[in-house]
Each structure stands twice: as C-alpha cells, then as structure tokens.
C-alpha cells in the first residue's frame, strides 16, 4: 500500500466513524421521515399501506453499520479521486515548468 491508499483508507474510516457516531448518539430521536408517516396515520387512519420495505435492518446497530458502510466506501472513492486530481494537476504544472 502506498501513501495515497493509506490516506484514502484513513479518510474512509474517519467518515464511517463520524456517520456511526452521529447515528448512535441520535438513536433515541425520531426521524422526520417517521414523523411524516405518523402524520399520515393521524390524518388518514384508514390508509392501507400497500407495500412494505424489502429488508428491514434487523437492529438499530445494523442500520448504523449499513449507513457507515455507505459513507465509508464513498469516503474511499472521494479521497482516492481527489488525490488523483491533485496528482494530475501537479504533474501538469511540473511539465509546463520544465
């Protein structure tokens, strides 16, 4: 692993940790999405929910992990390409300086 890979990995872990941390600390609070559902159920108590989620995360921890995975992989891609862009621009500047 070179320095760039190392940095990307570090950023991915940091981002995943942030996502997991926020998810854990806000675990007891209602999501606005859920509050909207509650309002539908109040205004239209007869509404027939005609479809259910394909998969329900088994636990709150499972949900947190999936969100952290989402952000972690994205963090890896984000920093990887950011570094690529930096290198591309630097090599170009070097070439034009020479």
């Amino acid at each position, binding site marked *: 692993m070179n320095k760039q890979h190392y940095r990307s990995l570090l950023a991915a872990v940091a981002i995943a940790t942030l996502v997991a941390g926020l998810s854990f600390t*806000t675990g007891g*609070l209602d999501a606005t999405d859920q*509050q909207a559902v509650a309002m539908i159920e109040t205004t239209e108590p007869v509404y027939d929910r005609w479809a259910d989620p394909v998969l329900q995360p088994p636990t709150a921890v499972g*949900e947190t992990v999936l969100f952290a995975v989402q952000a972690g992989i*994205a963090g890896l891609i984000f920093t990887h390409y*950011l570094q690529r*862009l930096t290198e591309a621009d630097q090599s*170009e*500047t070097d070439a034009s300086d020479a």
Partner: protein
Amino acid sequence: MHIMEGFLPPRWAAAWTLAAAPIVVYGAKQTIDIIRQDARVKALVAIGIAFVFILSALKFPSVTGSTSHPTGTGLLVVLFGPAVTAFTATIVLLYQALLLAHGGITTLGANVVAMGIIGPTVGWTAYQIIRPYTSLERATFIAAVLTDWTTYLVTSLQLGAAFPAGDGLDAIIISALDFAAIFTLTQVPIGILEGILAAAVIGYLTRLGSETIESLEVAA
C-alpha cells in the same frame, strides 16, 4: 425526505415514477458520456457522486428532537447539472430503499423527483443566475442550500397532494404546509451546513490547478 415504502397511494406512486424515469435515463446516458471525456472529468464525477453518498448517510439531530439527513446533491448540481444528479440520486435512494428501509421502491419515483430532479433544478437555476455576480464558492453555497430546502419542500407538496386535508387545491396546500412544518426546523440548519460543505469542496477543487477550474467552468 424519504417518503416511506407504501406511503403513497398507487396512482401517485405510478405518476411520480413515470415522471422521473425519462430524466433518470437521460441522466444515466449523460453521466456515461461525460465520464468518457477524460480522466479529470471522470474524477470530478466520482467526487461529486461520492459526496452525495457520504452526506446522505449523515444523520443530524435538531433542537426539535428529531433527526434528518442532508441530500448532498449540491456539489454535483454545480459541477454537472440536474440530469447527472437525478441519476446519482436514484442509485443512492435505491440502496437506502433496498437495504435500509429508508424510502421505498413504490416511492422511489417521488423521492427521485424531489431529491434528484426538482431540488437540483432549482439549485442549478439559481446558480446560473447568480454566478456572474458572485464568487464560485458563494454561488455554490446558495445552490446547495436551495437544492436541499427545495427537496424537502417538494416532499411536503407530494405528501400534501396525496393526503390533502379535504377537497380542492387549498386543502393540498394546507396539508403540504403541515408536512413542511415537520421538516422545516430540522432542515433549515442542515441545508446551510450542506451549503458550507459543498462550497468548501468547490473551493478546494479550484485551488488544485488551472485545468480543473477550466473543466469546471465548462460544465457550469
């Protein structure tokens, strides 16, 4: 802004899906086209898409005791416009609908219209108007904030239209305002935060080098 699985009546679910589909297909084609342009543009697309995935996974609490997510779409809107954003939002929303029970397949169309199409179009239009008069960072900030806020406003209107407080247009508006009231206090600060983050990334990208700025300006 995720309308939960099954919480739109079938005709509304179908209507929003039909509305979103052609734009998402067009966005997918456009995304593939620009990725093929050159390595730098490809890197920018990847950065923009990754930004959406990161921000939409963040869950922020608010003073009202509820939580909500940023949309993360502002950066992509400024870099590549609403069509690419629509395609990206579809992938993110699909992941969250299938694995996380956030949103749903039946409500995917409606959620894509809010987060991927109308929100981004409003942000992008604002960006086009104000960009000649202000810095790239400031224009990006405003575009990202408006994209986020509009997204949640559209969700409120969609819910208001599907569950009106009676008959007629004013019943839809009344109901939409009730739904908007749920989102507003939580979303106003999140939108601003999103604007700051998008502006920071754009600022960083422009400092990278001349070529990158040029490809940005072309896209913008």
